[in-house]
């Protein structure tokens, strides 16, 4: 329950969602689990921002969704990344790399 320290920087959630969907279509819960698992539980996904994010990505045409039946026979909405979404992911990854390097650079500089 002490995962609150892992709050996300604004704007990065969308990138992580796209990353999570890169391999296979998943439902919202699956995305949450996948990201928490990948980040070894450092990052926690706030459901309150996950769904707005999914709707936003849909509007931008980077993912699509479809109702399917889970292995337990339950209906769930599965999200799938689009071609444009894949391109966007590459783009955002590159930006993120530059940005984090830049920030690192500054931090290193200000350190004595």
């Amino acid at each position: 329950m002490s995962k609150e320290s892992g709050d996300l920087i604004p704007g990065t959630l969308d990138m992580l969602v796209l990353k999570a969907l890169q391999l296979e279509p998943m439902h919202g819960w699956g995305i949450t689990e996948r990201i928490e698992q990948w980040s070894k539980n450092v990052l926690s996904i706030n459901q309150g921002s996950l769904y707005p994010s999914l709707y936003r990505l849909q509007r931008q045409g980077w993912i699509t969704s479809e109702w399917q039946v889970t292995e337990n026979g339950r209906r769930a909405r599965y999200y799938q990344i689009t071609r444009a979404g894949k391109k966007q992911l590459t783009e955002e990854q590159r930006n993120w790399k530059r940005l984090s390097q830049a920030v690192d650079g500054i931090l290193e500089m200000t350190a004595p």
Partner: protein
Amino acid sequence: MDSPREIWSRLRLWLRSNEMERDMDEEMRFHIEKLIERNVREGMSPAEARRTALVRFGGVERFKEESRRESRPRLLEELLQDLRYGIRALRRNPGFTLVAVLTLGLGIGANAAIFSVVDGVLLRPVPLENADRLMVVWETDRNTGTTREPASVPDFLDFRGLSRRFEQVAAFQGLELNLVPLEGEPRRLAALAVSHELLPMAGIRPLLGRTFLPADDETGAPGVALIGESFWQKQFASDPGVLGRAIRLDDLPYTVIGVVPDSADFGTLQILSAADYSRAFADRGRAARVEVWVPLRPDPETLPRATHPIFVLGRLAPGATPEQAQQEMTAVMADLEKTYPENTARGAFIEPFPEVVFGPVRPALLVLLGAVALVLLAACANIASLLVARGAVRQREVAVRTVLGAGWRRLLRQFLVESALLTAAGVALGLVLASLTLDLLVAMAPGGIPRLSEVGLDGRVLSVMLAVSVLVALTVGLIPAFQARKTDLQATLKEESGHGSTTDRQRSRLRSVLVVAELALAVVLSVGAGLLLKSFWRLQQIDPGFRTEGVVKAEVQLPASRYPRSFATWPDWPEQQGFNDRLVERVRALPGVESVAMAGNHPLDAGFTNSFSIVGREDEARDWPEIAIRRVSAGYFPTLGVQLVRGRLFQDGDGAKAPPVLLINKEAARRFFQGRDPLGQKISYWRTEWTIVGIVSNERFLGLGEAPPAAVYSPLAQAPSMNGSGCLLVRGRGDLAALIPEIRGAVRELDPGLAVFGEEPLATTLAESMGQQRFTMLLLAAFAGLALVLAVVGVYGVLSFVVVQRAPEMGIRMALGATQRYVVRQVVWQGARLALVGLALGLAGAFVLTRFLSGLLFGVGATDPVTFLAVPGLVLLAALLASWVPAQRATAADPMSILRAS
């Protein structure tokens, strides 16, 4: 309590988003169940697991609301935000904004103005039915080599009877008539005599009444006339009761039977202008709107095969091609040649009507359109360069916004919104400029451009300009946006100030490319303008062979009613001769008048030609071209400064009853009397033998650009005008304009029913004859000047930037003892390098493009070496000057302060 309206709006929302709401509910329920499952797996009791999951998930309704908002499109909201941001950014930099808007305004304005002319004249549909099926049927003459002669009436009647490739054939003739209104001075007007087929064939429907019927074309039928819409408005205040009323034309009454649109004369002026002779009002300059139409009444009795006064138009039969029509007409003409000696050496030339109408103006207009497009390109390059430069200032802003999460798309949009704002302002300014200059442009344009008066900034022009502006906004916006994308975030954020980074160098390189492009465009346009300038100068250097200084002309048309022209008594027409003599006498008595002449045509009117022979050498004449026949009074030669070479000039005694005499010009002597003495020889035409009494110098009455043709001059008294036209030429001292009312007064005293027209200094007539060349030259020079200014501003801008960029380096160099001259040379060299690359590209471009000018040039080749050297020299000089100013600034700064600043 909800009002019914609120309930309704909720209901609507519910209906629309019902499905999405249910999906959302189900999705979130699924998520919560999964959370509960996990909590239970981690060892909680089901109740606790449920409670914790709900707390963990948070306010379901709030998330749903956020999701709903996220799924709604945001474009407008973001666009408004970008717009506000863009306006703020532009207002923060008034200098930049002003320069950019001004540049675009000039570019767009010039394009809008020229495009409206091109669209109005060339592109708009022709106001006639099936104009592309209409053909002009010219006659040709193998002896003279002329290909655009009018036809004779019998030939026309034969075409009409024999042709199968044409479903209809019609003819017209240009006329100049005196209109004597009930009040006010008599007026000369341009009229057309048309065969009854012409207007229906062209698809012209009367606004009122009817057009001509076959019966109207019969010889001896009552006089009827159609009037144009403008004439109807002016003369009859658009009175619908005009039908049946009478107008007096050259003293004869005509009953008005219909009103036709003004466009009913479409193309006739251009056909007349293209003709080798019988051009009627086409030789009168710009006042050439046809106001009245009368029946042609083609009568082979009065107009035999030897005279060629009419123009034939035909409409191709369905399925027939112009080539087939040409073959058929050639065959018809060959038959006629065998039958009639008058048709010796005659053939036919079929030319599509649109070609005749638009052919002469198309090249110049398209060149101007191309030139103005290049100016717009230069303007775009200039603004893009400005935006890139501003990008330098803004790169930190861009970097910060990227860090704050603004995506590339969003940044791109921001740049595009800014360029769209600039373009919108530029377009607004441009359209204002265009509407202000369009009238000037139309007034400056030479006569004879079809439907020039209809040119205007209308919906068509505006929508094309809108499309062009979208392209401009995209170009101008995308270049700096892609530049910004390359920006190195890390470097930018690290840097204290913007000096010397790799990005700056890239930016500088991009600007250099843009400036090189501007210089190249300026070179292309300047070389084009230079070639036209030189052509015009060449043209003006030509001696026309007659003097224009101090000479005024005024023309009259004597109606046959009061000045009878009976061919039986020719040339003894005492009424016409009396009028000419008395007018010359009266005008000579006016104060300030030195000499006066009466002539059949003024010296820039091509007049007409006739076949002829030399008595005793008739056999040679078979393949001689026709000779120009000038009819002049004795005062002509001193008035116009035409020199006597040998023999004598005309004398008072050379009257209608005296032996016929002639003067020939030097060209005629050279062409037809090689190695013989022309004096005393006899020339035969019009069934008269004329004795040559003198040789005079050549006059270029076909225009300055044409070689002086061989000509004979006969005394007006011995060869009076067969259509009653006469031109008074007056040489005076002092104010020529003051002479004109005096001349009008003299004519009125002699004949109050006679209209005086074409009254102007002969120098004006001469200038007007070069109208098209002057128009094209002035416009192209203006565009070249504009492009040059843009290029100079571009060079200046780039080098100013370079100077700021290299200030620390220069500071160090100067601190280490570099001289000011060294620094100046460094900067100027950088400018010179740009200029040289631009020049090389521009010259290559000019080399390729000036061939499109070749039809507009005179006495200059399309790759004239002098122009190709001089013009780039000028551009280079301008570029060096533009780089010298920032170079001076580089040395002016104190090295220490620069070093400290960096």
